[in-house]
C-alpha cells in the first residue's frame, strides 16, 4: 500500500462507527491503526485470510513433547543404558516431566515466531510511517486506512467526518 488515505479519529466509538459505515457503504477500510486492541473491528475491514495461530502452537507443543520423550527414551534405553539404583531403563513416570516442559517451551517459541510471520513483522519501515499522524496511532489516536482515491476521499470527508484526513503518496 504505497499510496493510501488515513482518516484520523479521536475516540473508540468514532472509529468503530466509521468503520462500520464505510463497510456498509461498500468501500471498507483496508486496515485500522489503534493504540489499543479494538474488538470485532475485523469484520468491517476488507476481507483478510484467517490466521490459525492456535493450531500452530498446539502442533508445536505436541511435537515438543514427543521429541522430549524420545530423547530420554533413546538415551536411557539405547544410547547409554545403566543400572541406576535398580530403576528400570525405561522409567516412564520419571520421563514425563521433561516432555511437559519441552511442550510448553516449543509452543511458546513457535507461537511468537508464528505471530511475527503472520503479521509480516519485523518490518522496521512501513510506508504509513511517512505520515506524521501514524505515530499517534500507537499512542492516543485511531486511524482508518483506505485505498488512495479522490472520490473516496470526498466521501470519507462528508460521511465519516474524521478529525483529519491525510494522504500518502510517493
Amino acid at each position, binding site marked *: 500500500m504505497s499510496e493510501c488515505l488515513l482518516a484520523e479519529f479521536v475516540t473508540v466509538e468514532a472509529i468503530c462507527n466509521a468503520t462500520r459505515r464505510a463497510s456498509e457503504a461498500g468501500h471498507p477500510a483496508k486496515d485500522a491503526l489503534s493504540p489499543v486492541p479494538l474488538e470485532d473491528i475485523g469484520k468491517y475491514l476488507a476481507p483478510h485470510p484467517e490466521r490459525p495461530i492456535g493450531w500452530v502452537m498446539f502442533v508445536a507443543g505436541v511435537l515438543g513433547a514427543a521429541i522430549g520423550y524420545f530423547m530420554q527414551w533413546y538415551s536411557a534405553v539405547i544410547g*547409554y543404558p*545403566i*543400572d*541406576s*539404583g*535398580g*530403576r*528400570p531403563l525405561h522409567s516412564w513416570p*520419571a520421563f514425563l516431566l521433561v516432555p511437559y516442559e519441552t511442550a510448553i517451551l516449543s509452543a511458546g517459541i513457535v507461537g511468537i515466531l508464528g505471530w511475527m510471520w503472520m503479521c509480516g513483522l519485523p518490518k522496521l519501515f512501513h510506508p504509513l510511517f511517512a505520515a506524521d499522524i501514524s505515530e499517534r496511532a500507537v499512542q492516543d489516536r485511531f486511524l482508518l486506512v483506505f485505498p488512495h482515491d479522490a472520490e473516496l476521499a470526498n466521501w470519507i470527508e462528508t460521511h465519516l467526518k474524521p478529525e483529519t484526513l491525510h494522504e500518502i503518496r510517493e
Partner: protein
Amino acid sequence: MPSLSTRANLDRRIALKMLAASVAATMARCSRPDEEIIPYTNMPEGLVAGEPIRFATSLTLSGFARGVLAISVDGRPIKIEGNPRHPFSLGATDVFSEAEVLSLYDRDRSTAIYRNETVTTLADFMAAWRDASQSSSGGGMALVTGRVVSPTTLARIDALKRRFPDLRWYRYEPVNDDVSRSGSRLAFGRVVTSLQRWADADAILCLDADPLGPGPDQLRIARAYSSRRGGNKRQCIHVAEPVWTLTGASADFRLAAVPGEIREIARQIANDLGADLGEPRLSEPVRAFAQRASIQLRANRGRALVFTGEGQDAGMQALCHWINERLSAPIDYLSSPDAVENGHAEELSAFANDLHARRIHTLIVADANPVYDAPDALGVADGIANVSFTAHIGLHRDETSVCCKWHLPLSHALESWGDARAVDGTASLVQPLIRGLYETRTRDEYLALLAAEEIVNAYALTRATWQMPDNGWRKMLSDGVIANTAAKPMALSVARIPDFPYAKTNGLSLQLSPDPSLWDGRLANNAWLQECAKPFTRQVWGNAVQISPNDAAHLGLADQDTVTIAASGETFTAPMIVMPGQADGVIATNWGQGRLRAGRIGTSVGARVSGLGPHPFMRLLSGVTMSKSDKTVTFRSLQAHTKLAGRSEDLFQIATLTELAHIPKQQTLPSLLKAPPRGEYAWAMVIDTDACIGCNACVVACQAENNVPVVGPEEVSQGRDMHWLRVDSYLRPHNKTLRRGFEPVPCMHCELAPCEPVCPVEASVHDHDGLNVQVYNRCIGTRFCEANCPYKVRRFNWFDYSGDQAYADEGPALKAQHNPDVSARGRGVMEKCNYCLQRISRARKTAEKENREVSEGEIVTACQAACPTKAIHFGNLNDGKAKVSRLKQAPHHYILLAELNTRPRTTYLKRVYNSDDGE
C-alpha cells in the same frame, strides 16, 4: 643427590638448599635398598612394574614387635598389613602399625646431622665424640633409650659397655609394665611376663585392666576374644573399671567403680578362695557384682582368668597372681625379654637425679624423648642443659633434641635393617622396604659408631647376630619370624598371699592412660592418627577430660566446657566431656598430646599431661581439683551424638543367647522395582558387631589403602571429614545397664541405591557386580547423592584436600605413600567406599588370566585385612557356600535401616550377650 656427609663445614644456606633438594628428590630416591630383601611369599622371578609385593618385617610398639607385611609398589612402601605367621599379629594390624607408613614419609622427619641449629657432617660429630670420650672409661657417660629387647641392639649396648665400662644405661618406656613387674616380683620373687591364654578361659574378670585395649599384646588377645564369640560355648566376661575401656565395652557384666572399690572386689574373691584378708568394704552394687563374678570364676576353675592393670598397685597384682593360681588359670609365665631389673619410672627418676647431681657429663639419648615424657618436677630439660656433651638420636628434632648440642637423624623402621622381639620373646627381622629417604642411620649403626666397632652397617650387624647360611637367612626374611625364639613357660608358684591393706580414697582422682591413637605421644605428628577418632568420645585433634554425669552436675559443669585441672602442683586445660557409665570420683584423660616440638601436624595439639605428678608415668593422681576455665578449647569430634535418640532397637541391635534361638528371620520388604539381574559376582560384606572391639584399625587401613586425605582440625570443627569407613560408637541403656557398641559403617552398596537416581550426570552408578561405584571424572558435585544417602557414608572434597589445599602441606614425600591403584580425588568431587575396587579388579584379572572364577577369600578388603577380630567378612553372594552367604542366613543377621528397603549389600550381625541383666 650429593650426600651431606661428604661435604665439610658447609654454610646454612647451602644446607637448606640441599634439604629442599632431598625432599624434592624423594620420589626419585624411591628405590630398593642395596642389599637383597626378600618378599613374604617365595621370591618372584623378575618384578612386574606396578605390582604390589608384600615384605615381612617388624614394627615395634614400646620396644615390642608386631610382625607386619609391608606392601611395596615399585620400591615404595604404601601399606602395612599383618603377618599371619607372627604370633603377635596373626595377620592383623593395629592403628599404630597401619600409620607407620605415613610416618616414614613424614615431611618433618629430621634429615641431617645438627650441631645446635646448624647442619653439619658425621665426620664433625665423630671428631667431637672422640674428644669427649677418648680418654674416658665411661665415667659420667650416660645412654638413655626406650625399652630395648632387640638382640642386635642389646649387642651394641654391650659393645658400648665394653668400650666404656662405667657407662650408665638408663632405659625407660613411658607406657610400661612397672606395676605388674613389681607385682610379679612380690608374688614369684622375680620379674615375669604373664601371657594369658584368653581363648582357654570361660570366665574372665578384669579388675581395672584393659587387655583388649591398645598395646603390644592387643592383636593376640583380640583374636582369641573373637575366636570365642558366636556359637554357644561363649565366655562370660566381668569387667570392673573406673573409665570405659574397649574391654569394658565388650563385657557381659560391667561395673563402674573407683580403683579403691575394685581393690575390694579382689579381696572378696580372694576370701572366697580361702584367703583371710579381712572383711571387704563393698557398697551394694559392687557386692552383687563381686559375688556373681566370684561364683562364675569358681565354677570355672582351670578355665577362669583374672586380669588387673597398671592402675592398681603391686599388692593387687600379686593378689591376682595368687587368685589365678588358686583358679589354676590358663596363663603362661615367661621370663621377660626386657632384661633390665629396674622399673621404668625408677630409671627415669635416677637419670634426673644424676643430671642434677652433675654426675653426667656425656649424654646420648637414643630414640627417646625424656624432656616430654618426664614430669616437670624432675626438671630434665634444665638438667640436660648442664651436660657438656649431649647428643640426640631420633626421627624428629623433638623436645629433647633441641636441648641437646648434637642431633643425629634416625632411620625409620621401614628403611632399617635390624631385629626385634615380641612380648613373649619371639624374634623377628626388620628389613628395609626402601633405601633411606635421607642421609639417616639406624640406632644400631649409631651405637656401633659410638662404640667404635669395626662393623657399622646395620645389615652386617643384624646378620652377625643371627649366624645363618644364606638360605636360612632368606627363609627368616621371607617368613618375618624366627622359629623357636619364644621364651619357654616356667612353672612358678606364689610364695604367699601378700598383705593387702585397705586403700584410702581421697577426693577426685585423675586417671591417665595412653592415647588410643597416639600412644605415648611419639606418633603425635602422624596426621592419620590425629584424625582417628577415639573409640568413646570420638574426639580427634586433641585430648579431653572425661567425667561422670554426677560429678559434672556436682561441680556445675556442662558437657564440652573447658576446664582447668590442678594435680600435684601442675595444671592443664582441656575440654571436658560427660561420659555416662564412668565411675563417680574419677576423671580421665590421655597421654600423648600437647607436644611442643612434634612437627607441623602434632605441635601444640591438645594438653600435655605427662608433666603431671611427682613421679613419672603415674596412672592415677589423687586429690586433683577441677574448675571451669576462662579459656575455651574446642572439642573436635567426628560424631556429635553417641546416645541413640530412641532408635537403638534398630541401629545398634543386641540379642541374648536365649533370644537368638527364636529370632524371626528379617524379611526383605516388597518393592515395585525388580532387583536388576546379578552379574558374574555379587560382592557383599557382613560386619559382626559382636566381634568388633572398636580398635579403629580398619579406619586407618582404609585411609592408607584408598589415599583418603586428612582435613585438619579447622575442617573437622566445620563438621567435615573424609573417612570412607567410620566406626559409630553407640551407648544404649538396656535393663538398668549401659550397653556399649561399635558399628563400622562403610558404604552399604544398596541394590536399590537412593544415591544413584538422584545423580544428574550418572556419576553414581551400579556396576555389573552390584557395586555402587562413584565415577570421579563424571561428578560435578551436586551432592544430591549424599543428601539422599540415609547412611551418610559419602564424603565430599570441599577443598582440594589431596592437592594444593592439603592440610599442613605434606609435600612430595607424602605422594610417595599414595596407592598407585587408587586415583586421588580433586576439589568438588564426591567420593566413598568402593569395597577396595582396586583389589577386586586385580583379583578378577588374575582369575581371568587363569580362566577361573575368583575364589572365596581371594579378595580381602583393606578393612577386613586389618581387623584383629575378623569382624569384617567380604565375599561373593552368588556363591552359596561363601561365608557372607551363610552369615546372611544367621539368626542374628540384620540390615541397617531395613525399613527403607534400600537392599544394602553391607549388612550386620547383632551384638550378642549371654544374658539380659548386665547390671
